[in-house]
C-alpha cells in the first residue's frame, strides 16, 4: 500500500500543475481521501475528534442494506448487481461533474443514494432506465438545490418517482417471478446465485408486464378489496400472500423491498449504530399500523389490516432507510415524531384511497416538504420561553465571556 500512497502523492503535484487536470482535482481528492486517511490535523479546539466521518457514516447505511441486496441476488439473479453498479457509475459521474463545475469536494452522501435507488426498482427494469433515473435523482433531487446537505427531498425517492411516472410499464414495481415461484426457472437453491437473471425477467420487461404484475401483496390486496363479484374476489384472495411469505420475501415486488425480515435486520443495525433516528422509525411504523388498523376495523376494506400494511410494499425499506435520511428529515429530534406520523398517515391514506397501490415514496416526499416547517415550529416552541431572559442578557453581554 505504501507504493500506492507514494504514487498518489506524486501524482497530486502533476494534477495541480496541469492546466487540464487541475479542474478535476475534486475527483482526485475524493479518490485520495477514499484510499488513504488525510493528514489533516486540528489546530484549533477541540484538538481531539470523534473518529466517525461522513464516509463511515454513509457506508454503514450501505452495509445495513447488504442483507436485502444479497437476498435480491438470490431471488432474481446477478443482474440485480449489474443494476446497482450502473446506478453507482452513472450517478457517481453526475456527482463528480457537478463537483468539478462547482469546484467543491465530492460528497459521500451518494454512496447511499446509489444503492437505495435500484433497490426500489423491479429486477426487470432495463439498465438505461436505472441510468436515467439516478442521474435525474442526483441532478434534480439534489444538485440544483446546492448539493449534499441542501436538498429538500430524498434524491433516491425523486429518482424513483421520476421513473415510476415516466416509464410506468417498465417499472410497475412488479419484479418478476421470484425464486420461490414454482414455475420460475431458478426455483429452489442456489436460486439466483447460479443465474444471471430469472428467465422471465427479460420477457416481462419487454412485453406484457401488466399480466404478470398482479402478484405484489398490495396489488393482490387492492384487487381483493375492490372486486365487484364473488368470483374475482375468490381468485384475488388466493393470490394474497401469507404473512410468512411477506416476512421472508416470497412475494413479488421491487428488488430490495420484498423481505421484511432482512430489512428489519438491517434497519435495527442502523438504530443500534445510532445512524438512523429511532424516533422516525418508531412513529412511522406505529402510526401506519394503528391508522390502518383503525380504518380496517371500522369496516373500510380498502384499508389493509395492520400486518399487511407493515410487511408489504416499501414500508419497511422506507421507514428504516429513506425516512431516516438526515438531510431531508427534520433536524430537531422533537420534530421526528410528527414527521414519522405524517409519513405513516399518508402511506395508509394513499394506499387505501388513491389509485396507486403503493404510497410510501409519495408519503415520504410529502413529509420532506414539511421538514423545515416542523423544525421551525419546534424551535419557536422551545425558545419562546427564553425570550425575556435573552433580552436581559443582551444588556449584560459585554461582561460575558464572549467579549
Amino acid at each position: 500500500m505504501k507504493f500506492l500512497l507514494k504514487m498518489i502523492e506524486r501524482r497530486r503535484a502533476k494534477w495541480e500543475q496541469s492546466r487540464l487536470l487541475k479542474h478535476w482535482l475534486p475527483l482526485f481528492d475524493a479518490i485520495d481521501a477514499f484510499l488513504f486517511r488525510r493528514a489533516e490535523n486540528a489546530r484549533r479546539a477541540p484538538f481531539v475528534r470523534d473518529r466517525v466521518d461522513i464516509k463511515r457514516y454513509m457506508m454503514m447505511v450501505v452495509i445495513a442494506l447488504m442483507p436485502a441486496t444479497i437476498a435480491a441476488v438470490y431471488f432474481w439473479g446477478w443482474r440485480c448487481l449489474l443494476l446497482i453498479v450502473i446506478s453507482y457509475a452513472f450517478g457517481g459521474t453526475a456527482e463528480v461533474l457537478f463537483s468539478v463545475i462547482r469546484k467543491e469536494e465530492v460528497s459521500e452522501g451518494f454512496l447511499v443514494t446509489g444503492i437505495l435507488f435500484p433497490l426500489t426498482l423491479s429486477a426487470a427494469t432495463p439498465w438505461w432506465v436505472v441510468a436515467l433515473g439516478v442521474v435525474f435523482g442526483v441532478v434534480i433531487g439534489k444538485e440544483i438545490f446546492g448539493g449534499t446537505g441542501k436538498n429538500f427531498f430524498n434524491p433516491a425517492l425523486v429518482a424513483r418517482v421520476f421513473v415510476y411516472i415516466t416509464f410506468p410499464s417498465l417499472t410497475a414495481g412488479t419484479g418478476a417471478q421470484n425464486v420461490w415461484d414454482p414455475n420460475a426457472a431458478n426455483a429452489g437453491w442456489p436460486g439466483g446465485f447460479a443465474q444471471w437473471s430469472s428467465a422471465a425477467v427479460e420477457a416481462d420487461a419487454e412485453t406484457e408486464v401488466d399480466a404478470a404484475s398482479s402478484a405484489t401483496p398490495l396489488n393482490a390486496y387492492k384487487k381483493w378489496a375492490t372486486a365487484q363479484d364473488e368470483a374475482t374476489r375468490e381468485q384475488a384472495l388466493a393470490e394474497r400472500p401469507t404473512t410468512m411469505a411477506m416476512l421472508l420475501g416470497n412475494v413479488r415486488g421491487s428488488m430490495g423491498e420484498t423481505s421484511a425480515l432482512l430489512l428489519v435486520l438491517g434497519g435495527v443495525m442502523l438504530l443500534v449504530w445510532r445512524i438512523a433516528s429511532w424516533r422516525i422509525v418508531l412513529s412511522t411504523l406505529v402510526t401506519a399500523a394503528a391508522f390502518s388498523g383503525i380504518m380496517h376495523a371500522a369496516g373500510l376494506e380498502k384499508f389493509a389490516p395492520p400486518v399487511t400494511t407493515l410487511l408489504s410494499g416499501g414500508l419497511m425499506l422506507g421507514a428504516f432507510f429513506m425516512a431516516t435520511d438526515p438531510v431531508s428529515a427534520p433536524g430537531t429530534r422533537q420534530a421526528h415524531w410528527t414527521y414519522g406520523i405524517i409519513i405513516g398517515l399518508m402511506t395508509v391514506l394513499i394506499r387505501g384511497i388513491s389509485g396507486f397501490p403503493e404510497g410510501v415514496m409519495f408519503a415520504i416526499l410529502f413529509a420532506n416538504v414539511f421538514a423545515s416547517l416542523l423544525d421551525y415550529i419546534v424551535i419557536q416552541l422551545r425558545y419562546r420561553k427564553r425570550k425575556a431572559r435573552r433580552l436581559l442578557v443582551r444588556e449584560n453581554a459585554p461582561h460575558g465571556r464572549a467579549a
Partner: protein
Amino acid sequence: MLEEEAVRATRRAQRMPSSMKHAHRSNGGKQGRRMAFRARTFPGGYAFKQLKGEIEPGLGVAEAPLPSRAIVPLKETFGAEVPALVSEGDTVAAGQIIGRDDELVSTPIHAPVSGRVARIFKLATPDGEVTALEIKSDGSTNWQPVERKYSDPLTAPPEQLAETLYLAGVTALGKKGIPTRFNSSPVAPDSVDALVVSAVHSEPYSLPNGAVLEPNLDVFVSGVRILQRVFGGPRTIISLDARDAALAPKLESMLSADGVEVALVQPKFPAEYDEVLTEVLLGRMVPDGGTGLDVGALVVDVQTCLAAHAACVEGKPLIERVVALGGTGYKERALVKTRIGTPAHELVKGRLVEQSLLVHNGALAGQPILNGDDWPVRRATWGLTALYDDTSRPFMGWMAPGFDFDSTSRVFASSYFPPKARRADTNLAGELRPCIQCGYCSEVCPRDLLPFQLDRVLSIDELDEAEELRLFGCIECGLCSYVCVSKIPLMTNIIAGKRRVHEEHEAEQAELAKKQAEEEARQQAGEARQQAGEARQQAGEARQQAGEARQEAGEARQAAEAAENKQEGDAA
C-alpha cells in the same frame, strides 16, 4: 444579621424550583445526606471513555524546578489590564506586587520569582495583546509575604480577609478567574448566596482534583471556611468527582459542623463548567451569556481554597499552582507544582514525544500553543495538554474496525468489545463536508442548543436569527465540534458569531448615542427658542400691564376730574 439571613433564604427559595426546595429542606436529615452521595448528572454532555495518555490515578504532585525566567502578563483571565509598578531593570522579590489598580475589576499581579525585570513587552494571548513582564530569576526560592496574616482567620473580620485575599491575588482559579474581593470585582457582598467548590474534572487530560485534594484535606477545609467567612456564610456545596467518592465521607465529617454539603457529580463533560454545575447542584439555570453569579452562585476550584488558606494563614501570595501534564504527546504524564509565569515550553522541555501539539488547558476547549517561547503558565492554567500529532495516512482508515476508536455513534468495534484505552491524537479523522443534520451536536449540547442550526444561520450572516437560536447560550465547551460527522468547526464558528454580534451591537450603540446627542442638541436649541419666546411674551404682558396701569391711572384721573367737576358744580 438575622434579617440578612432571612432575605437570603427567601431569595434562595424564589430561585429554586419546587422539587429542589424539598431536597434542601430535608438536607439536614440523614436521608438527605445519603441522597447527596448518589452521583448527580445532567442531560446532554458526553462522558469520555478512558483515553490514551490520561493521567494515571494515584499519581502524586511533583515539585517543578524554579524556572530560569518568568513571563507575567499584567492581566489575569477575568480582570482588566493593570499598570506596572516596576520598570525595566528593577529588582523584584517573589511575591512582590508589580502591577495593581484598585479601581478596575482586577487583582494585583505578583512577581512569581525573585530577580530582575529583563523586559516589558506586548504578549499575544487569546484575549488579545497584553503587556507582560519578563523576570530573570536569581535562583532564590524565597518569597515575600503579604502584609497581614492571621493565626486564626476565622475570628478576623471578613472585610480584612477579603482584602488579604485580594492582595495575595487569590482569584477563582477556574476558567474565568473571577476576583474574590468585592470592590474590585463583579462579586457584590450580597450577590453570593451559594459557594460551590468544584472538584469535578471531566475534560480529557484534566487535572485530577482528587490528587491535589487528598494530601491537603486540612488545608482545603480551612480554605473553604475562610471563603465561607468572606462571603458571609453562604450555602456551601463541595462537588466531588464520582471517581473520588472515597473522599466524600471524610470531607463530610470534617465540614458537617460548618453546614457544608458534599455532593458527587458524574464526570460527564462539561460538568466542571459553572453554568452546568449550578444547574446540577442548585437547580438554578444560568441565563444565556451569564455566569454562575447571575444566579447567586460563586464557583471556585480546589486550588482556590488551598490558596485562600496559604494567603490568610501563611501569608503566601498566589505565585505557584499545580498543573497537569497529560496527553498522548507526553512520554510520561505528570502533575507538577510550578511557579506561575513559568514558560510553557520550559516546563514541558524533554517530556514531549517527537510529533506533538502543545495545548493550553484541555483538549476540548483549550488554545494551541503554536509558536513563541513566551506562553506562560497563568493563574487559570490547570494543564498543558500535549497530543500526538498523527500525520500518518493509513490505507482505508475510515473503514477500520476501530477497536480503540472513540465515538458518540456506535459504528466502531470499540462499542461492542471490552473497554480499551481509546486512541487520541490531533487527526481530524475525516474531511470537511456539508452538514447533513445528523443531530449528534444537538444531542451532546449541555445547554440544549442546536449548534448545526446556529452554524447555518451564522454562515448566511443572520445574526438576529442566531440570537433567537440562543447564540449566547453557548458555553464554548467544544463538544459540538468534537462529535461533528462532517468535521465542521462549529464552536469556532459560534464564537466568531458572538464576536460579530458584539461588534454590531457596539456599532448600534454608537449610532444610538450619536443620534441621542443630536436630538439633545436640537431639543436644547428648541428650549432656547421657547425661552426667548416666553421672554418676549413676558415683555408683552409687562407692556400690557403697563398699559392697563396707565389706563387705570387715566380712569382714576378721569374720576378725580369728574369728582372735581362735581365739587366745582356743587360749589357753584
